[in-house]
């Protein structure tokens, strides 16, 4: 199982005030808060943990078919990149640049393909093409549709397939990740 999440740092600065009273306490565990306030760049640590939680939320929701829930504090991040939720452990890896923070979460040792875009419009056709290449089929028969829980599902020739993918957008950036068999 796989999940991803991207944070556009410029947008996060206008959209959110993480220093707002109570904000950090509603989202982060006591241990995470400690790491945030001890960090050289607390703002970066906030969004790193946030993207780890969001990426794991998506992987976990897809794995168990959970309905949507707003429970960021239930996801316990470590500095090493592990995230614990409901007795499951996920591994995450995070890329941090001056412009964005991007996390990928996985439940097992699955290999994956991922790509980041700075123009959202380019992502969708490339994602379809990537899936088509992996399964050696024509991209015209690949479609992606969200299910009732908002989880994107790949369909090949109208038939639902069990292909793990995750998509994320924020501000100027978007990204996909596909699990490889």
């Amino acid at each position, binding site marked *: 199982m796989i999940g991803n999440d991207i944070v556009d740092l410029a947008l996060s600065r206008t959209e959110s005030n993480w220093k707002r009273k109570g904000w950090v306490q509603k989202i982060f565990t006591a241990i995470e808060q400690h790491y945030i306030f001890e960090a050289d760049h607390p703002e970066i640590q906030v969004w790193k943990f946030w993207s780890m939680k969001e990426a794991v939320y998506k992987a976990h929701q897809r794995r168990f078919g959970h309905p*949507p829930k707003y429970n960021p504090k239930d996801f316990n991040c470590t500095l090493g990149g592990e995230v614990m939720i409901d007795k499951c452990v996920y591994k995450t890896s995070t890329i941090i640049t001056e412009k964005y923070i991007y996390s990928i979460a996985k439940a097992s040792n699955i290999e994956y393909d991922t790509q980041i875009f700075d123009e959202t419009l380019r992502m969708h056709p490339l994602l379809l093409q990537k899936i088509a290449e992996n399964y050696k089929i024509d991209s015209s028969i690949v479609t992606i549709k969200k299910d009732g829980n908002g989880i994107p599902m790949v369909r090949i020739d109208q038939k639902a397939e069990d292909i793990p993918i995750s998509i994320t957008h924020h501000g100027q950036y978007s990204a996909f990740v596909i699990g490889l068999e």
Partner: protein
Amino acid sequence: MTKEELLSKLKIIITPYVQNQEGLKNLTENTDFIKDLEINSANLVDVVLDVEDEFDIEIDNEAMEKMLTVKASIEVIEHKLAVK
């Protein structure tokens, strides 16, 4: 406080975070904050904090995890006001 009053107060609270203005025009109990209004998930915590300030209530994690729709949020607020 009537349900209508609650709904209009909630509408004022969520308005600054809404990215899909069409969804706001057609606001009903069934409106989903993320799907219909495109509120960024990091801003949902601002909605929760604003609700706490406006109604002078405390929203614990258990209540917060439900607050993804207008209906669920109104239920949480009504419940917290009732036990205040």
